[in-house]
C-alpha cells in the first residue's frame, strides 16, 4: 500500500500493522478502547476482538484513513469499529477494505457505529475491493445528531462471492445525509440494505443507489426511507444489467408517518444503450473499453 505510514489505522488479517496518530484524534484498537473508555461499551454490541476506534476531538484538516486487508489464506475477520466525531468538526475519512490477492478465501465481517455529534460534518469514502472467492458482511449504523451532515460514498469495485451490506442512518433534527452506494457486481450474490430514518424535524436525506449486474450475478437491494417528522427524503435506485443471466431486484420503500413529510423515489433497471456504445466505439474505444467507461460513469453518477 502506498504511503502506508500515513494510514491512521492499518490492519492486515488480525494484526495491526500501523496506527498513525493525527493531532486531535484518539486512535486505538477496539479491544483497547473497550478497556480504556467504559463509555464506548454503550456503542459496541459485544466485547470487540478486533477493529478500530477513532475519536476525533479537534478539527483535523487532512483526510483520516483506515485500511483493513486480508493477506492470508482462509482468514476470517470479525471487526467492530467505532468512529466518533465531536461537535462542529468537519472531517474527511477514507476507508478501504480489501483482499491483497486472489483465491485467499477470505471472510470479512464488520460491524460499525459512526456518531456525528451536533453540528459536525463527515465526508466518508468507503471503498471495497474483493475477489470472487471472498465473503463479506458489513453492518453499519450512523447516528447524525442535530444539524450534523454526512456524505457517505460506498463503492465496491470488485464484489466478493457473497456480499451482504447493511446500513442504517438515524437523522436528528436538521441533520442532512447524502448516501451514494455503487456496486459493480460480478459473479456474485449481493444483498444491499439501506434504511434511513428521518427522526427530527427539518432533517433530509437522499439515498442514491447504482448497481451493475454482470456475469450471472444476483443482486437484491432494499432501500427504505422512514419519515417520523417534518422531513424530506428521496430514493434514487438504478440498476444496469450487462448480461442475460444476471438479475437485479430493487425494492424502494417509503414509510411516511408524518403528514408534513415529503418522500419521493425513482427506480429503474435497464441495459447499456446501444447508441452510447456505438458513440464511444466511434471514438476508437473497443466494445469492452466503452462498456467499462459507461459502467464506471453509471456507478459514479
Amino acid at each position: 500500500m502506498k504511503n502506508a505510514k500515513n494510514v491512521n489505522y492499518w490492519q492486515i488479517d488480525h494484526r495491526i500493522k500501523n496506527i498513525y496518530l493525527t493531532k486531535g484524534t484518539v486512535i486505538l484498537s477496539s479491544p483497547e478502547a473497550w478497556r480504556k473508555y467504559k463509555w464506548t461499551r454503550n456503542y459496541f454490541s459485544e466485547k470487540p476482538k478486533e477493529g478500530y476506534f477513532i475519536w476525533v476531538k479537534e478539527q483535523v484538516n487532512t483526510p483520516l484513513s483506515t485500511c483493513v486487508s486480508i493477506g492470508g489464506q482462509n482468514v476470517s475477520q470479525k471487526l467492530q469499529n467505532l468512529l466518533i466525531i465531536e461537535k462542529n468538526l468537519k472531517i474527511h475519512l477514507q476507508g478501504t477494505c480489501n483482499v491483497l490477492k486472489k483465491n485467499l478465501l477470505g471472510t470479512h465481517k464488520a460491524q460499525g457505529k459512526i456518531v456525528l455529534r451536533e453540528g459536525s460534518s463527515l465526508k466518508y469514502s468507503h471503498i471495497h475491493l474483493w475477489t470472487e472467492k471472498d465473503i463479506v458482511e458489513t453492518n453499519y449504523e450512523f447516528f447524525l445528531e442535530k444539524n450534523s451532515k454526512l456524505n457517505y460514498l460506498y463503492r465496491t469495485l470488485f464484489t466478493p462471492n457473497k456480499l451482504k451490506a447493511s446500513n442504517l442512518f438515524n437523522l436528528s433534527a436538521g441533520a442532512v445525509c447524502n448516501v451514494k452506494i455503487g456496486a459493480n457486481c460480478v459473479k456474485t450474490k449481493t444483498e444491499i440494505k439501506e434504511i434511513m430514518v428521518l427522526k427530527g424535524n427539518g432533517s433530509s436525506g437522499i439515498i442514491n443507489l447504482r448497481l451493475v449486474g454482470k456475469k450471472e450475478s444476483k443482486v437484491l437491494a432494499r432501500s427504505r426511507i422512514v419519515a417520523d417528522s417534518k422531513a424530506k427524503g428521496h430514493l434514487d435506485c438504478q440498476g444496469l444489467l450487462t448480461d442475460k443471466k444476471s438479475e437485479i431486484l430493487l425494492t424502494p420503500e417509503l414509510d411516511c408517518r408524518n403528514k408534513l413529510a415529503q418522500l419521493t423515489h425513482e427506480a429503474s433497471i435497464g441495459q447499456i444503450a446501444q447508441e452510447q456504445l456505438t458513440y464511444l466505439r466511434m471514438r476508437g474505444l473497443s466494445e469492452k473499453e466503452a462498456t467499462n467507461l459507461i459502467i464506471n460513469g453509471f456507478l459514479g453518477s
Partner: protein
Amino acid sequence: MPILLEIKNLEVQAEGKKILKGINLQIRKGQVQTLLGPNASGKSTLAQVIAGDKRYKISKGEIVFENKNISKLSPEKRVKLGIALAWQTPPAIKGVKLSSLLPKISKKKPQIKEGKELLEREINVNFSGGEKKISELLQIIALHPKLAILDEIDSGLDIKKLEYISKTIRQALIKKKITLLIITHQGHLLNYLKTDRVNVMIQGKIICQEKNYKKVLRIIKKYGYEKCKKCKLLAD
C-alpha cells in the same frame, strides 16, 4: 489526388426499411465535399454507415477506404484507419466527463479556444445545442482523422457560434489537409467554407453532384429540394 473514400452502389436497411437506395460517392484526399438534402433524406444514415454503425444493415454495395473494403469493419477499426464522425445528435453519457474520454482517444490535447468549460462536464448531459457541436468538433480534432464527417455541425447555431465553428474547421481540419464530408440541411456553413463538390441527396439517393455549389444553393433556395430533380442544372 488519389481517392480516399469510395461508396459503390450502397443499399442500406434499418428495421426492414430500405433507407439508402444505391449511393455512389467518391471523395479524394484533401477534398471538402458537402452532402445537402432535406430532412429524412438519409444523410445521417449514410454518415453512420460510413463510420460503422451496426444498427444499419448493408444489403448491397460496399464502402472502400484507401482501397480497402471496410464494409464489415467495427467502428473502432474504422477510427484507427482514420474515419471520424461528428454526430448530429450525440447521446448523453452520465457520469463520464469529456476530460476522461479525451485522453483515451488522443495523446495530444486539442488546442481550441472554446469548449474548455465542457471538459469537466458529463458528456452531452444538459449540453445546449451549441455546446454539443463544440464538443463533437473537439473530439474530432482530438482524433486527428484522415476523413472527418461533420453531420449537421452547423444546425441550431447563432451567427457567432457558426463563425467560430467554421473558423475552427478551417484552421484545425482543412489547413491540416484533413478530408471533409460536411453534411448540412440548410447549407449555412457554405457561407463560410468553400467546398469542392456538393452532393444533393433526396429519398435515399444522391441525385446531383456539382462543383458549383453556389449555383446549387441558389437553386435550392429558390425552388426547394423537391424541385431539384426538375432543375436543368442537376443531371438525374
